[in-house]
């Protein structure tokens, strides 16, 4: 096991100092050290999207990010997105449309949807399918998620 | 008298992957055959020499005898930047000199992070008094982390290893400076002294 590395990162507007092994992922640090369990460990291979968070304003896989390599960067998790206008609209739409059941994938879906809406304020069904293809859901069958994202997009535009 | 060199008219060795079921599962069956310009007795003596086997198996770092029919071997398989060091136990389950050797290989790498199991069959057929056809089949399964994440390429690697093993074996036997002195048909216990280690027999890992 490598010696612990000292890392300073910003998580949800708080500056945090961590001592982590070289191969510790951001996902592990968020969940196990900071008790920010919104991001989920679904596959630990970057495929399922349940660990999606924002890093310096860009959606990334926390499971594929090494904490030690995030020195000085700024992480936004679902726990810190409560006052974000886009996230709030998405959360309302998700609830109204029934776009979640067990909720395991939901934090990742919301972060990915927010990133999509930043790039495309009026996505078509196909745009949402493509833009959020990296977030798997075992419960909903996706259609309600697509409806919710498009509903939120409409509301954010008005 | 076995000839040295002179490899015209030989069957080219090929190791083939034979898939089982849809997508091949976690098993691969490799098989191949090749001719060696040496008599069957000579070839048989060489293939039952674990020291030579160690030199012919690509990536074999060591081999030691642990029982009259068992050997422990360390074989490294490299795939790109990943080096998997396998700890293997080979058990010879049946020998019918000078024509047949059946063996089983069991082992692991990375403290049981991956497991490997193989059932091997080696047959020797006399083509003529100075030429022997060696045929091998091996049913190999790889499970664990390499089986999960690298199975496709692992299967390619073992096929390539079978090919290289055959090439090295044939090269060694055919280019030997001195053929082995004639001896009575090899018995099950005939082991070259250089590879017999002074360790007490241990229980074979199954």
């Amino acid at each position, binding site marked *: 096991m490598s010696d612990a590395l000292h890392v300073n990162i910003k998580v949800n507007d708080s500056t945090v100092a961590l001592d982590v092994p070289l191969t510790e992922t951001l996902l592990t640090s968020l969940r196990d050290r900071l008790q920010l369990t919104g991001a989920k460990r679904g596959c630990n291979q970057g495929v399922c999207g349940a660990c999606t968070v924002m890093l310096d304003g860009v959606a*990334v896989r926390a499971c594929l990010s090494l904490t030690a390599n995030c020195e000085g960067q700024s992480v936004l998790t679902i726990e810190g997105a409560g006052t974000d206008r886009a996230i709030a609209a998405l959360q309302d739409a998700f609830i109204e449309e029934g776009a979640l059941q067990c909720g395991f994938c939901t934090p990742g879906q919301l972060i990915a949807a927010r990133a999509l809406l930043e790039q495309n304020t009026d996505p078509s069904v196909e745009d949402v399918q493509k833009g959020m293809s990296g977030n798997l859901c075992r419960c909903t069958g996706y259609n309600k998620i697509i409806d919710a994202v498009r509903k939120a997009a409409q509301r954010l535009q008005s | 008298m076995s000839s040295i060199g002179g490899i015209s008219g030989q069957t080219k060795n090929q190791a083939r992957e034979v*898939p089982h079921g849809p997508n091949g599962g976690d098993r691969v069956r490799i098989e191949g055959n090749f001719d060696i310009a040496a008599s069957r007795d000579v070839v048989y003596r060489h293939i039952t020499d674990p020291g030579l086997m160690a030199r012919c198996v690509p990536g074999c770092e060591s081999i030691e005898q642990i029982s009259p029919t068992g050997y422990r071997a360390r074989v490294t398989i490299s795939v*790109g930047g990943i080096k998997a060091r396998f700890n293997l136990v080979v058990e010879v389950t049946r020998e019918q000199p000078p024509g047949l050797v059946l063996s089983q290989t069991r082992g692991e790498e990375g403290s049981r992070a991956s497991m490997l199991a193989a059932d091997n069959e080696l047959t020797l057929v006399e083509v003529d008094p100075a030429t022997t056809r060696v045929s091998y089949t091996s049913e190999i399964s790889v499970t664990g982390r390499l089986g999960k994440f690298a199975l496709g390429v692992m299967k390619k690697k073992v096929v390539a290893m079978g090919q290289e093993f055959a090439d090295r074996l044939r090269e060694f036997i055919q280019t030997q400076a001195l053929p082995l002195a004639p001896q009575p048909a090899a018995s099950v216990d005939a082991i070259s002294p250089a590879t017999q280690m002074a360790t007490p027999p241990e229980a074979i890992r199954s």
Partner: protein
Amino acid sequence: MNTGLFRPASVAEALALLARLPEARIIAGGASLVAMINARLLDPAALVSLARIEELKQITETSGGGFRIGAMARHRDLAAETRFSGPLAVVQMAAAQIANATVRNMGTIGGAVAHADPGLDYPPALVAADASIEIAAALGRRRMPAGEFFVDWYTTALQPGEMVSAVHLPAARPGVGLYHKFARVSGDYATASVALTMVSDGIAIVTRVAIGGCGPTPLMMAEANRLLSGNPAADDLRRAGDLLQAAADPVDDVRGSAEYRRMLIPRMLARAFDEARVRAGASR
């Protein structure tokens, strides 16, 4: 210090670190490397991160109209590139089909190329585009055609202590380029893929095809390219497909059996070629 994370500010510094720490690995985007660490296939004691090296992030037009793509260029940026015209579009199309939007934010062309997984999208696209790989070594930089860079399963021509610094695309010429990928699901590694470029400069039509996912390296055959160049008849197209199919050496794994992948090759080739011809005709 021999362990830990190093963040050099220049290629020269990175190379010096690799020389001093032969066990260290490079981390580019981390999309492949960290996945392997998570799968316990690797446990590096030292990593050299390229995140701070500005030179590696640039995508620049070179004199003569080609492009130099820094090794740290993200898939996202290459997928959005509008400057890769004609046959070079094969690279943009390949980038756009890698994984998903989030992973494209992380992965880099240098990391992908150095990893050389046979199911990746860049390798066949770069071979079809006649790209070259720029390798940085302590003794200096050199370039190598993409077709020579990919050597074997997960194996490239990189020597210990070397790193990919850029990918070079030749000047765009009139023509088309496209990348078709067959995968189990959207974003998966390719079960099989076809990268095709067709340069039609009014004098001759020169076609290059590289098959991905069907062997240790991208599969390109001079004879198949010859058959597909000019104005091939249906028979030429069929023979090219047969040649590539016979030469393929696909793995057998969960993404598809070797037999299935071989079956896909001529079919995908035919579709790609037909589309290329239509696009080439439309662009005249």
